[in-house]
């Protein structure tokens, strides 16, 4: 049953013998960083010294947790020995080591990835199969053989570059953002662990290896969401993310079981080679895809499992940028693109993906309209943008999905890091005056462009990119998705399929309209965020505003790099009508060996294309809608009329519903959490555990043992006469037995 990779059958792979042989080093480097930083975080003298700027005041606004943490540590540590300079030195020295190791290991991984990319470019013409590197046999159980193997192909190469590239920038940003935090080394340990496991996820050559990374990034996400665990709300958010993801992981596992039961292999190459044994559109392949989809909705925060992502914003902002916007949450899109050979065989599952994506893209965008917390806006924006990637993956436009994944990684990381810079500035301003106001609420911001001009410009670049304004990166990728949906709604295997009785063609046109509407809302809520944060009068407070200032260089230059990527990122996959700007569809050709065949199967053998005029019309429509959204926001929203959060009046009607996120969390609490808790308490605890387990089994066993012992003890009367009788009877019985025999 063990399937050899095609490459080893067909002779040496073009990448064998090159630097790609060292693919295992990619995740090992951040793993080493995790171990070193984890050890550093155990150094006791590391924790906040007496002169720590963060521990000087006892305020409790947005980042109160880390300040209080610092204070507690300080008191505990210096209870016996009042502050000396040696403590401060020990702290800063150790901190600077963690601040070097953390970004360095990821940067080294990135450098190695670039070298592999160059090697792959050289042989890209001959590379039709993935380069699979086997290290050891992991699970040889009966006919189930799973190797610990990494797979390097065009798709995983792209993901590795995004993860390590954006990861390096965010690690550098973190050095500035987390500099006063007592958990500095622990933070970098977790962040390195995340990068290592994310690389395992995308490099794994089989579903089980991928699942290790899948679970591992969930763990890292949990650890980082609850990074400031002294506040219960943060710890709860971490638990919520973990538990909601368990639901999705259940789907992933079932899908793997089904694959194993039907195909007898779990390697990507093996499944791709044998999937033809299953009937196209059959129940088995559809079920496998739908269970994988359940896993994807958990990891990529789609309806119905999106509820954990907004809460995940409780973590440090660079974490939100790296894990909850740029990389981990895109794992679901990666999984669908990686399994394109499966999904392209199940039109119903594909349409489900597209419908979920479209619904999420629109639904999350409406919530984003009325959020006041700057990070919550971005969180719902992320959910919405992931919806677009799902739309693309759902209609078989895998390249467009991966393209949007990449551009989104650039501009959303930029948006999050920019908001991190804003929050940092707000936090420090409030710190100087010991104010307790919310540093993340946009009603407390306003007019920040005067204090942070560089951040302001960069954030506008990202906003235009996400809104889909040319020539920024988001324009190309979002346009390609919407155009792809439109083309496939006209003619494809999906258009001729039915989904719950609805013709696929009509469904895809509805997806297209929802996508356009989502783009309109995206432009509105992002412009709203910019207007309220950077424009209009300042609402921070007179005293506080004096302390607002531009962010430090260590945090600014990753923003600049991401800003540049957000501008030029779209160039990697130019549409046909812009052939004057450079080679058309470079990413399309790059990913063709991985997803090309599957994409062709969805479209029915010929590439999905619409006429030149139609294409230009669609582009014009999308751009007009984005511009209309921005214009509407500028015209309608009045930043000058806003009042700080403390004086704000409560909202009414539909605005209240949006601000309260359609009460989905409350509904989940009522419908799922409360019954589960009640059932656990009244049935599982009181009946099963206390009644049956404790009562019947534990105490019952004790009672039975004691009863038997009591019966046995009655034989012992203590009277010699009785013993003599028993003895004689016994002797007679033995003698009798011998005699009779």
């Amino acid at each position, binding site marked *: 049953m063990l399937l050899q990779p095609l490459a080893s059958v067909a002779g040496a792979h073009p990448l064998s013998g090159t630097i790609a042989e060292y693919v295992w080093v990619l995740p090992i480097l951040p793993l080493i960083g995790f171990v070193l930083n984890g050890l550093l975080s155990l150094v006791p003298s590391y924790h906040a010294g007496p002169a720590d700027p963060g521990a000087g005041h006892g305020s409790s606004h947005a980042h109160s947790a880390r300040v209080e943490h610092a204070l507690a540590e300080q008191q505990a540590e210096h209870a016996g020995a009042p502050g000396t300079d040696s403590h401060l030195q020990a702290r800063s020295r150790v901190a600077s080591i963690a601040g070097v190791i953390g970004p360095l290991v990821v940067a080294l991984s990135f450098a190695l990835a670039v070298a592999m990319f160059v090697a792959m470019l050289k042989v890209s013409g001959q590379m039709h199969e993935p380069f699979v590197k086997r290290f050891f046999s992991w699970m040889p159980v009966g006919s189930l053989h799973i190797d610990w193997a990494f797979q390097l192909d065009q798709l995983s190469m792209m993901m590795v570059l995004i993860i390590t590239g954006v990861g390096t920038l965010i690690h550098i940003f973190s050095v500035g953002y987390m500099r006063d935090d007592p958990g500095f080394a622990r933070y970098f340990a977790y962040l390195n662990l995340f990068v290592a496991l994310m690389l395992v996820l995308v490099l794994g050559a089989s579903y089980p290896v991928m699942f290790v990374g899948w679970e591992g990034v969930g763990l890292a996400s949990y650890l980082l969401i609850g990074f400031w665990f002294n506040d219960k709300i943060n710890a709860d958010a971490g638990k919520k993310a973990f538990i909601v993801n368990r639901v999705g992981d259940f789907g992933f596992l079932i899908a793997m079981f089904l694959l194993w039961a039907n195909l007898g292999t779990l390697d990507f190459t093996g499944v791709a080679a044998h999937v033809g044994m299953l009937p196209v559109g059959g129940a088995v392949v559809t079920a496998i895809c739908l269970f994988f989809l359940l896993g994807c909705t958990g990891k990529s925060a789609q309806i119905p499992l999106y509820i954990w992502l907004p809460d995940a914003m409780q973590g440090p902002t660079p974490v939100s940028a790296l894990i909850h916007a740029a990389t981990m949450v895109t794992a679901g899109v990666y999984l669908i693109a990686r399994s394109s050979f499966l999904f392209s065989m199940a039109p119903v599952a594909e349409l489900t993906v597209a419908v979920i994506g479209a619904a999420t893209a629109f639904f999350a965008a409406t919530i984003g309209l009325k959020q006041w917390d700057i990070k919550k806006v971005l969180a719902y924006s992320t959910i919405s943008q992931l919806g677009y990637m799902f739309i693309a993956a759902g209609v078989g436009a895998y390249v467009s999905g991966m393209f949007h994944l990449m551009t989104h990684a650039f501009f959303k990381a930029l948006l999050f890091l920019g908001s991190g810079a804003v929050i940092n500035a707000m936090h420090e301003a409030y710190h100087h005056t010991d104010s307790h106001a919310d540093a993340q609420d946009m009603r407390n911001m306003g007019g920040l462009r005067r204090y942070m001009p560089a951040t302001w410009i960069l954030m506008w670049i990202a906003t235009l990119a996400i809104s889909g304004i040319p020539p920024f990166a988001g324009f190309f990728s979002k346009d390609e998705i919407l155009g792809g949906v439109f083309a496939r709604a006209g003619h494809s295997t999906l258009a001729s399929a039915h989904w719950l009785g609805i013709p696929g063609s009509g469904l895809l046109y509805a997806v297209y309209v929802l996508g356009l509407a989502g783009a309109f809302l995206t432009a509105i809520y992002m412009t709203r965020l910019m207007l309220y944060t950077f424009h209009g009068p300042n609402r921070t407070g007179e005293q506080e505003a004096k302390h607002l200032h531009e962010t430090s260089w260590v945090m600014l230059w990753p923003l600049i790099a991401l800003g540049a990527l957000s501008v030029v990122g779209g160039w990697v996959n130019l549409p046909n009508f812009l052939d004057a700007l450079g080679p058309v569809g470079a990413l399309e050709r790059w990913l063709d060996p991985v997803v090309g065949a599957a994409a062709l199967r969805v479209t029915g053998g010929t590439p999905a294309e619409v006429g030149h005029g139609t294409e230009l019309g669609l582009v014009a429509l999308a751009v007009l809608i984005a511009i209309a959204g921005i214009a509407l926001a500028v015209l309608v929203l009045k930043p000058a009329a806003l009042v700080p959060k403390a004086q704000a009046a409560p909202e009414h009607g539909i605005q209240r519903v949006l601000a309260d996120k359609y009460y989905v969390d409350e509904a989940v609490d009522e419908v799922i959490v409360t019954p589960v808790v009640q059932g656990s308490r009244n049935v599982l605890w009181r009946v099963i555990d206390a009644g049956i387990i404790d009562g019947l089994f534990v105490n019952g066993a004790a009672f039975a043992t004691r009863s038997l012992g009591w019966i046995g*003890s009655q034989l*012992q*009367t*203590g*009277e*010699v*006469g009785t013993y*003599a*009788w028993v003895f*004689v009877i016994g002797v007679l019985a033995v003698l009798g037995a011998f005699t009779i025999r």
Partner: protein
Amino acid sequence: MVAESLIISAVLFAIGVVGVLIRRNAIIIFMCVELMLNAVNLSFIALSRLYGITGQVFVLFVMTVAAAEAAVGLAIIISIFRHHESVDLQNINILKG
């Protein structure tokens, strides 16, 4: 001759067993035990006619052990009497757990 000796031996032994079982006085029970021992001795002697000198040697051993047992047993009975003012075994059940 052997057969008659063995019958006497069996009768003596049975008397000893019955005495042990039905009497309460420790001294009498003790004497019944001695009776059983000597009944066995008698059968040893009788059988040594058929099977050689070994049985007679065994009798010497049994008498030796019986003497030692008598010494220990009587000492126990005396100390029981000192404790309980009685040698009636029905009153003595301190062995009960």
